[in-house]
């Protein structure tokens, strides 16, 4: 009995893979938020931004610089990051909203790259070396830094649920009808009294705000940022890919897109990534092409097809 009482307290044993699965879940939820945010401006308002990585990066840098230089808590920094991203979105909206479709996408792509290069060239933002968050303070709720992934998981889950509820409200409100009207025919919407610039600006600013906040979260989660990781053009492409793949302009689209594409990307990375010749990326690309050809309107069309098939049974 004595020997038993001297045994160290039993610790909850965790399977090694749990941490990895939690990480994948966090990244999935990050893309749910980013996908919903992009969907607001791209899917509903029809403005295909290819520069959203700039808003993400601005959010990460704003909160990180506020924490490192002025010791401002990232909880506040997150809101500040959202506002900075929204302000930049408003500034670029004025010249860019004169452009339509592909030209708007090209302009936003160029702006995203310009912001990335500016951050790369600036010493104040750490240049190419990036910025390391004060990891020595871990754990610190005030500094949004923890050793475990659970707190991060809870935060991003709350953000994903909140953003999804916002999009549900957009769907059922008058705003949803106006944005979709603008998306389908801007001139026809304007002659009904809908001011396209005002609504597009609101959608872009709101989208940038949430993207900026998610950037802060990501910086706190990874504890290191540089322009290559938080402002990469590929990040913008992924933000587009998630809702487009799941179902553009739908609430479920970004959720489906994130929970299919991120695990798929991780799976091909685990299976083929170790060969060092980029075959995982080739396989990932090929699967996306195949799935897109199979479901051109996004994965959500599978549900619609099945529902239609149920409603209209095939002739015997």
């Amino acid at each position, binding site marked *: 009995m004595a020997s038993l009482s001297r045994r160290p307290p039993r610790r909850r044993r965790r399977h090694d893979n749990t941490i990895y699965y939690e990480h994948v879940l966090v990244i999935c939820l990050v893309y749910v938020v980013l996908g919903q945010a992009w969907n607001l401006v791209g899917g509903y308002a029809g403005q295909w931004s290819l520069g959203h990585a700039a808003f993400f990066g601005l959010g990460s840098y704003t909160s990180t610089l506020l924490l490192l230089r002025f010791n401002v808590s990232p909880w506040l920094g997150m809101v500040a990051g959202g506002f900075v991203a929204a302000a930049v979105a408003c500034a670029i909206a004025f010249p860019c909203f004169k452009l339509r479709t592909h030209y708007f996408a090209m302009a936003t792509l160029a702006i995203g790259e310009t912001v990335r290069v500016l951050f790369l060239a600036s010493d104040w933002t750490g240049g190419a070396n990036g910025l390391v968050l004060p990891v020595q303070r871990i754990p610190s709720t005030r500094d949004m830094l923890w050793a475990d992934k659970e707190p991060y998981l809870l935060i991003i889950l709350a953000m994903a649920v909140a953003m999804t509820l916002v999009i549900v*409200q*957009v769907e*059922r*409100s*008058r*705003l949803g*009808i*106006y944005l*979709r*009207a603008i998306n*389908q*025919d801007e*001139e*026809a*919407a*304007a*002659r*009904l*009294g*809908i*001011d*396209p610039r*005002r*609504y597009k600006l*609101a959608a872009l600013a709101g989208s940038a705000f949430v993207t900026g906040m998610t950037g802060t979260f990501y910086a706190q989660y990874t504890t290191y940022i540089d322009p290559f990781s938080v402002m990469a053009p590929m990040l913008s492409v992924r933000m587009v890919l998630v809702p487009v793949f799941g179902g553009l302009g739908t609430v479920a689209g970004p959720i489906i897109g994130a929970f299919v594409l991120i695990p798929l990307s991780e799976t091909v990375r685990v299976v083929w990534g170790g060969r060092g010749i980029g075959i995982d990326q080739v396989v990932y690309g090929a699967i996306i092409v195949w799935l897109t050809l199979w479901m051109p309107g996004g994965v959500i069309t599978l549900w619609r097809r099945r529902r239609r098939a149920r409603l209209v049974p095939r002739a015997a």
Partner: protein
Amino acid sequence: MSLLEVSGVAKHFGGLTALAGVDVTVEAGEIVGLIGPNGSGKTTLFHCIAGALMPDDGDIRLHGQSLLGVGPHVVCARGVGRTFQLVRVFPQLSALDNVLAGQSHRAESVMGAFAGASTSAVRRRALGLLEFMGLADHASISASELSYGQQRLLELATVLMGEPELLLLDEPTAGVNPVLVDRLLERLREINRGGTTIVLIEHNMEAVMGLSSRMYALAMGRIIAEGPPEALRSNPAVLESYFGPPREARRR
């Protein structure tokens, strides 16, 4: 004071003169027809009134207040509704959502639009308009699945949802089958009886002459005749604009 006063409006596209000093006056409660051969400037005049184009010269006043330099959404908010020459509905929205998109936006903020769904009173009004146009059974169907004629009626219902004081209709019967044309014309008379002033461009002479109390004829960007439909029917300038100069004049 007239409801709409268009005075000396000119519009050029490079070397092409689309409008060369057009004067049009519309009194409240009228149905005014605007006729003229293709390319005479009728649609350009509508674009200028509705704020889609800025005239190079002249003035456009609604209740004495200038409409120059304001966007189409502001012109709509001041009480001008318009339909297009080619139907423009929102194809992926249901017929009901199309009509709801036309509800009045006067002084509505983005947050206000985000916070609330259309009220039941507004939805009832939208359904009422669909019923008025004979589209009640198609409320939940995508606009793209309606026939061209039904889309015309839907577009009109959408514009009426904003309760315009002045309605600009660009060829409302074009491409519509004769059964629907009769329904459309009847509806336009009812709308006018309800107090809405109508200006319509139309190539269907029987329709426009039957509806209008007064007409303007345009040719080469100028008003060539004005008066009651009977007077324009036999006006030599109007006949010449459509059919060319009389045979005797051509022989000379």
